[in-house]
């Protein structure tokens, strides 16, 4: 079961939509990621768990091309695209909801959403402006507010909506439920489930590990920049002891 996720190039991993091979990432002199490999296959939901500061965000930023990997490769559809810039990665079909939202303060809600609108790689336009607003009705009342005139939760919705507007095939959610009211969180998990059903892959980082397990096919747990555990979500749901040790719950 572990092999499905971290394999040698040429095998299943290379066929995966996106995959990372033996990644080493540094911030300046500090070595953050130590040889991480991860495959994100088409149509699969992957959860990324780990305590604070273990390198989850760094892994995502490496995949997105924000931080260069000093060693290792990145593949998309079997092609080596190591060193691709973030805009390239996004164009390859990644919708990115960063930690801390990254809403544009000087753009209105409407503009925040519209600016990224784009058809997906295969030309599909499942997510339109209207559909995003239907998904987050709260935003309808705030369309003219600037990004800096929103409550924290509203910003989170904008951020997710904006990523969906790019019609991605992989949605990366880095702590997307942070600061959201329970009802909204439930709604977001519902949306995630919905997204998952439409065949969009997801990579989810969230502190609510139970929800992550419930909404993913696989789970990867990080510890100090290494993959400490990879397993099928269903299995871990049944036997959470392994997780408890790694997450400190």
């Amino acid at each position, binding site marked *: 079961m572990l092999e499905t996720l971290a394999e040698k190039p040429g095998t299943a991993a290379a066929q995966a939509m996106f995959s990372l091979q033996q990644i080493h990432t540094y911030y300046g002199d500090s070595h953050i990621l130590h040889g991480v490999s991860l495959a994100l296959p088409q149509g699969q939901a992957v959860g990324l768990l780990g305590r604070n500061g273990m390198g989850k965000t760094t892994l995502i930023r490496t995949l997105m091309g924000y931080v260069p990997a000093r060693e290792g490769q990145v593949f998309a559809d079997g092609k080596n695209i190591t060193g691709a810039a973030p805009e390239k990665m996004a164009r390859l079909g990644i919708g990115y909801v960063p930690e801390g939202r990254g*809403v*544009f303060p000087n753009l209105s809600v409407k503009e925040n959403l519209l600016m990224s609108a784009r058809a997906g790689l295969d030309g599909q336009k499942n997510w339109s402006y209207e559909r995003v607003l239907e998904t987050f009705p709260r935003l309808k009342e705030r369309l003219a507010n600037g990004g*800096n005139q929103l409550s924290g939760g509203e910003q989170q919705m904008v951020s997710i909506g904006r990523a969906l507007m790019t019609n991605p095939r992989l949605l990366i959610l880095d702590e997307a439920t942070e600061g959201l009211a329970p009802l909204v969180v439930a709604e977001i998990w519902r949306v995630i489930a919905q997204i998952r059903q439409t065949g969009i892959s997801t990579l989810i980082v969230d502190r609510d590990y139970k929800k992550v397990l419930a909404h993913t096919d696989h789970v990867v747990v990080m510890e100090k920049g290494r993959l400490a555990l990879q397993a099928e979500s269903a299995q871990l749901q049944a036997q959470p002891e392994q997780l408890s040790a790694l997450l400190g719950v």
Partner: protein
Amino acid sequence: MSNSSSTPLPNTNQAYAQAPAVTQQSRPIRSKSVWVGVVLPLACAALLAVAQPFWSSYLSDLIVKIMILSIFALSLHILVGGAGLVSLGHAAYFGLGAYAAVKAAGPDGSNFLVMLGAAVGASGLYALIVGALSLRTKGVYFIMVTLAFAQLAFFVVHDVGYFGGSDGIYLMQRPALGALDMESSSTQYYVVLAALVLVYAFIAMLRHSRFGHALSGIRVNEQRMRAAGFATYGYKLAGFVIAGALAGVAGFLLASRDAVVNPELLAWHHSGEVLLMLILGGVGSLRGAVLGTITFVLLKEVLSTHAIVGNAADHWQLSLGVAIIVLVALLPKGLVGINDKWQKKAQAQSEKAPAATEKGEHHG
């Protein structure tokens, strides 16, 4: 909450900055080693003092000019490097200091202290007024308000008859205090050197004090400072007035060296020039301010001297421009950045080869 993003300068409000926070511009508060912070500047000053008799009168003059401009740049550093307040009107305080000094001088026998007092008082007072009003604004708006008030001062000095109009006024007699007579160029040299040392020491002390740290805090994140209980307006205003008054000191020194003042001293491009010196040196440290001043003045001096660069001197603007562009391209942190880079390299080397610890002592 203000919108930090649409005001490109300076980056005070961190509320929306979640991108990698540690960038090249980060300036952690850290204590420099005693060597770099105290011994080196003092050694330089001592060297300058001892060497004076050997300078030609031209060199001595050039050094005096650099020292005066250094004081000027250091005073601006309190604002730019300290509190993150970029002022584009600092020449106004410099010029007002010079004018006040000349106006306070008697026709015969000008008292050093009276003139100095007038300079500090006038520029400090104007800084108080301008600061009180302009500190309501932030970022580029602050830059422009300070510019506006500087231009007001410029036009008053330029257009009001009392100040002698566009051609300026003369100082009939350079200031003196007992045996200390600024008519003598070596006295000038030592007085200016002493002033530089004092100002440098004062600002260094200020930076390390709680007041200085509070200013740094305001530079990085004023919102948080207020939430913690700092009346930031008062801190900034105090910084502004101190900076203005010290610029007045520089102005006084200039007036007593040149014995002539004119409105051009207050012109905005001089405010711009001193800011450039600061940026060139690197706004992170006091050494940067002095280093930037020296480099800027010397670059221009060298590039416009026929004896050195031949006929290229006719196009000194071009070569100076190219030099500046090259420096910007190569030195992301200004001139002090080189020093830091060397230190890091030296550190890395000494770590790799622990035997060669002796070599670690590289300083720019």
